[in-house]
Every structure is written in structure tokens, then in C-alpha cells.
């Protein structure tokens, strides 16, 4: 029987939460970690397998050089020390998703250790998460349980196993206890995993799509009365598979732990399962001697001792990290903190960066992506980067406006044409005949007609009341189907009135 929950705000007033997060990142190598089977998602079951990843007798694993390079790159990006020498170890357990009855992993000799990740929180504040280690290991296969309720093990008659994922290279990143987050622990947890995702993508070692299981998180939580108290007993919530779920899982466990502690009971150290539908967790198995994995050095693989020169070469090739890039762009673009946050949350950072690279001001780029294009994306329920328009096309479009070839209003029509697949902005302008009318003869005719229709305007303007000029400009724009250069129209109107 579960104890009632303590409201989150109340719980964090009386207890100090400490979190710890384990994240598995799938590396996007072409082949698996220890054999040449294709490393790819999907496909028919058991069609990306070799004797090695099926664990057949007499086979020997050989480490993928690219997987090692990606692990080192990731370790360096997490500010870790790369081990001068390290070994693989066998993690022994009996479960059919592991055909060898052990997972090839690393135990006390990880490839990378002692690093940190700077996480930018929603309000722009930076929080440093300490990294204990990042180690290499192979992924397991996938079980499907047949005959039980909704595919769960409980009540299943038998299971079916697909080994396509077995042997896919992973890096498991383990934090030290993350202290000092206080009531922002759920946000820190979510932002930390988002940051790992961004880093993995920036350094091109993983597509890092959480919805595809390329990033998987286990979230540990414990409470203590004050930040000075020793760490409390922790629970580990397994396979929390979305960013929102990470935040929910931490919140829920904070409320639950607080209730257990309030009642004077001890928290059980156990694994818990997260439930997406209501954001709750439920007990899995208790930590027991079944967790004694009897690690020992893997005799089938020789030690890995990366050449320091190679490590330095990898370090030198690291791109700018996402947090630094964001700070640099924020400064260069001159956006307010709120504007920058909206841009990041809308996924418009790369798009605006590429748009400004084509010569457009940051303000204009932001106006397009956060204005008209965001509206269109929202209407179509698609991400900004899935719209049928490139930053280069936006650059070209703004260029046409800046040159006075078209105006803002026509610009939106041109954008419609681009989105409809009619080609680049210049081509759309030509095809649709959308050039601004800057031929004074045609404009003058429209101005004269508009003034004739509103004779009192002339007197008002002559008397110093400029208000009605806008109405005349509007009439001219209407007559020219929006293709007039508004600035020139205004000039012509004033010339006409003032002689």
C-alpha cells in the first residue's frame, strides 16, 4: 500500500532533494560495437545480426574503432579525463535479451571519468552537473512478452526475442549525486538530459532522439532533512523516456519520499517504474543480491590504451559546445533573455543562425521565424525545421524586401509561393508577377484617383493634419493590389497635395 503523497512545494520546503542520473546514449556508428552487423533502427527482426551479437560459441568480439572514437569524443565533450588504459568487463546476468548471459561493459575502468556539464536552466541560470564517469557498453536485444496483460511480463506465457539491437554501441553517462538543486531538482534533471542530447548531436556521435530510445534515462532520487545531512536512501526510476517524464518522475518521487519519511518509515532502496499516463511511479524489484553482477575483466578483449596524440586530435576537432554557442549567438544577436529563450524553445536557433549567415539582420531573421513561420508551423502542427522553406530562402526573401523589389505584404505572398513549392523567392516573384510598382506613372495615376475620391483630405493635410495620409496610402495599395512601394506612395501623395 502506497502512502499518500506530500504536495511537492511542501516537500521541498522540508527536505533537500538529491538526484543522480544515468543516461544511455546510442552511438550512430555504421556497424555494431563488437561485430560488423549493421547498427540501424527498425528492419525485420533478427536481420542485423552476426554470430558475435547472437553470442554463438567460439566467436570473438573485436572493438569498433569508430565506437571508441565517439566514446572518447563524448567523454571530452563532458569535460572528462580519458583513461590512458582501460578494460572491458563482463556484467553477468541471466535474461534472454543478452544471449551470452553477460553484457560486455566497463566496470572499474571506464574510458572517461571526472567531468562536468554546464546546464542552462529555463531562466538562463547555469547549473553545473558533476559527471562521475562515462563508459562503453553494448546494448541488449528486445523482448516481446506474449500472452500476458498488455505485453508485460506478468502472466506472459512466453517471450520472443529480437537481437537487432544487441551489440549496438552505447555510452552510459553517470552523474555524481547532484546536490544544491533544491526545489529546482526536476528542472535540473530535465535540462541536464536535454543538454546531453544537444551535446551528443553537436559532436555528431548520436542522433540522440529520445522518442526512438537513442537516449534513455534512469533517475535516482533521495531526500535528506537539510543540505548538511548525509544522503538519504535512494530509489531508481528506470527508463524514463521523455524530457517531460524526467521532470514528472523526480517530482513524484520527491512527494512520495517525503510522505514515507513523514510517516517515520524508511525509504526502501528499490527500482521503480514510471507511468507516463499519470506521472506516477510504482515499485519494481527491491535491490537484492540479484544485483551482484559478478563483474570480471573480459578475457576476450584486450585492454584499450588510446594514443594520447589521438585523444588530443579528437579534442582539437571538437566543435563549439551548445551552451557556448548559445551564449555567443545571444550576445551577437542582441536579443533580450526572453526573446532568446523563446527562440531556443521554438527550435529556431539553428534556423536563425543560418538565416543571418545569408546576410539578414538577426532582428529580421527572428521576425520571420518567430512570427509568420511559427504561426504557419503551428497551424500545420509541424516543427519549424520541417517547413518547406530554407534559411537561405528566407535570406533571399528579406533581401528582396530590403532592396525595395517587394514590400512586406508581397513578401508574405512570396513566402506562400515558396512554401507551396513554387521555387526560390526570386522565381516566385517572377512567376506571380509580384514586383513592387515603383513606376511613378502608374503610382501617380492611383494617387490622383485616390485623392479625387477623398477631396477633404487635401485640405486637412494642408492644415497640418497628417492622419488621413494613411487612408490614401491604403487606397493606393488596394488599387495596386499591394504591389506599391508604400514609402514612394507617401512621397507622391505629399508632392501632389503640397504641389
Amino acid at each position: 500500500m502506497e502512502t499518500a503523497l506530500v504536495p511537492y512545494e511542501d516537500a521541498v520546503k522540508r527536505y533537500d532533494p538529491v538526484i543522480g542520473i544515468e543516461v544511455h546514449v546510442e552511438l550512430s556508428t555504421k556497424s555494431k560495437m563488437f561485430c560488423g552487423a549493421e547498427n540501424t533502427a527498425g528492419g525485420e527482426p533478427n536481420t542485423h545480426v552476426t554470430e558475435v551479437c547472437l553470442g554463438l560459441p567460439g566467436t570473438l568480439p573485436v572493438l569498433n574503432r569508430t565506437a571508441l572514437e565517439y566514446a572518447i569524443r563524448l567523454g571530452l565533450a563532458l569535460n572528462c579525463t580519458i583513461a590512458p588504459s582501460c578494460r572491458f568487463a563482463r556484467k553477468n546476468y541471466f535474461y534472454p535479451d543478452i544471449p551470452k548471459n553477460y553484457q560486455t561493459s566497463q566496470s572499474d575502468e571506464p574510458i572517461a571519468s571526472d567531468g562536468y556539464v554546464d546546464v542552462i536552466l529555463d531562466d538562463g541560470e547555469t547549473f553545473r552537473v558533476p559527471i562521475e564517469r562515462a563508459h562503453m557498453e553494448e546494448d541488449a536485444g528486445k523482448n516481446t512478452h506474449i500472452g500476458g496483460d498488455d505485453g508485460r511480463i506478468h502472466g506472459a506465457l512466453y517471450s520472443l526475442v529480437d537481437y537487432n539491437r544487441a551489440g549496438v554501441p552505447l555510452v552510459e553517462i553517470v552523474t555524481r549525486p547532484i546536490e544544491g538543486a533544491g526545489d529546482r531538482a526536476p528542472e535540473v534533471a530535465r535540462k541536464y538530459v536535454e543538454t546531453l542530447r544537444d551535446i551528443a548531436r553537436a559532436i555528431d556521435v548520436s542522433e540522440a532522439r529520445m522518442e526512438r530510445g537513442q537516449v534513455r534515462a534512469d533517475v535516482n532520487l533521495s531526500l535528506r532533512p537539510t543540505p548538511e545531512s548525509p544522503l538519504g536512501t535512494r530509489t531508481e526510476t528506470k527508463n524514463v523516456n521523455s524530457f517531460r517524464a524526467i521532470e514528472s518522475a523526480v517530482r513524484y518521487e520527491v512527494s512520495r519520499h517525503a510522505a514515507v519519511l513523514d510517516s517515520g518509515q524508511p525509504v526502501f532502496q528499490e527500482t521503480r517504474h514510471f507511468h507516463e499516463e499519470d506521472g506516477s511511479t510504482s515499485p519494481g524489484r527491491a535491490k537484492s543480491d540479484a544485483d551482484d553482477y559478478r563483474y570480471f575483466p573480459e578475457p576476450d578483449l584486450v585492454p584499450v590504451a588510446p594514443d594520447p596524440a589521438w585523444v588530443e586530435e579528437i579534442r582539437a576537432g571538437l566543435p563549439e559546445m551548445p551552451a557556448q554557442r548559445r551564449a555567443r549567438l545571444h550576445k551577437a544577436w542582441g536579443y533580450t533573455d526572453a526573446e532568446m529563450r523563446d527562440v531556443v524553445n521554438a527550435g529556431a536557433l539553428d534556423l536563425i543562425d543560418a538565416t543571418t549567415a545569408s546576410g539578414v539582420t538577426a532582428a529580421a531573421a527572428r521576425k520571420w521565424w518567430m512570427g509568420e513561420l511559427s504561426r504557419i508551423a503551428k497551424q500545420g502542427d509541424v516543427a519549424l525545421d520541417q517547413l518547406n522553406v530554407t534559411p537561405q530562402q528566407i535570406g533571399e526573401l528579406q533581401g528582396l524586401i530590403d532592396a525595395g523589389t517587394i514590400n512586406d505584404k508581397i513578401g508574405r505572398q512570396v513566402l506562400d509561393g515558396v512554401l507551396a513549392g513554387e521555387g526560390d523567392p526570386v522565381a516566385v516573384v517572377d512567376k506571380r508577377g509580384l514586383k513592387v510598382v515603383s513606376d511613378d506613372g502608374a503610382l501617380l495615376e492611383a494617387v490622383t484617383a485616390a485623392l479625387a475620391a477623398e477631396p477633404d483630405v487635401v485640405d486637412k493635410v494642408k492644415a497640418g493634419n497628417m492622419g488621413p495620409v494613411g487612408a490614401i496610402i491604403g487606397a493606393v495599395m488596394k488599387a495596386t493590389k499591394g504591389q506599391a512601394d508604400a514609402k514612394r506612395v507617401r512621397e507622391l501623395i505629399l508632392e501632389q497635395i503640397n504641389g
Partner: protein
Amino acid sequence: MSTITRDELVHVARLAAIDLTEAETDQFATELNVILEAVARVNTIVTPDVPATSHPLPMTNVLRDDVVIPSIPLDEIEAGAIAFEDGKFLVPQILGEE
């Protein structure tokens, strides 16, 4: 000197999913202790400057290029499997786990 008790032996056997009879338990406890004695003797001559060995050959960095090779054909996999269904290995129900 380290020795293994009967209880420890039963525990290790359970972790390794090995069923032992009473007679086997007694037999292996005795035999394992002979091995542990031998290891203890080796430990008396090991000094901290001797690194632990996990591999008999003085080799490091045996690596392969990231090149894809063909998968084993599905019919061959099925032919070698004890039970197979819908392209997947069929295994008995998994108990005591979630």
C-alpha cells in the same frame, strides 16, 4: 587465508544459476578451497608494482574498422534455433522479473 564457506558457495552457485546437490556442494567447497589456497600463495609474492593481468598477451588496441558485413540469413538463424516465431527467438516465460 581466504576460504569459502558452504553458504558462500551456495550463494555463488545461485548467482550463476547452477543447481548443486548436497554432495556436490561439499565436494566443490573443498575443491574451491584448494584453488583459493593456491591463489593465496601467489598473493604472497605479488607486490604492488606488479599490475593485474586480464589477458595473457601483451597487446592493446585490437580494433576493427566500422564496416558493415551481411547479416546471417534468417532461415539459417531459424534452423539453429530451438524455437522460433515471427522471425524471433521463442524463449520460456521469464519469471521473478519485471
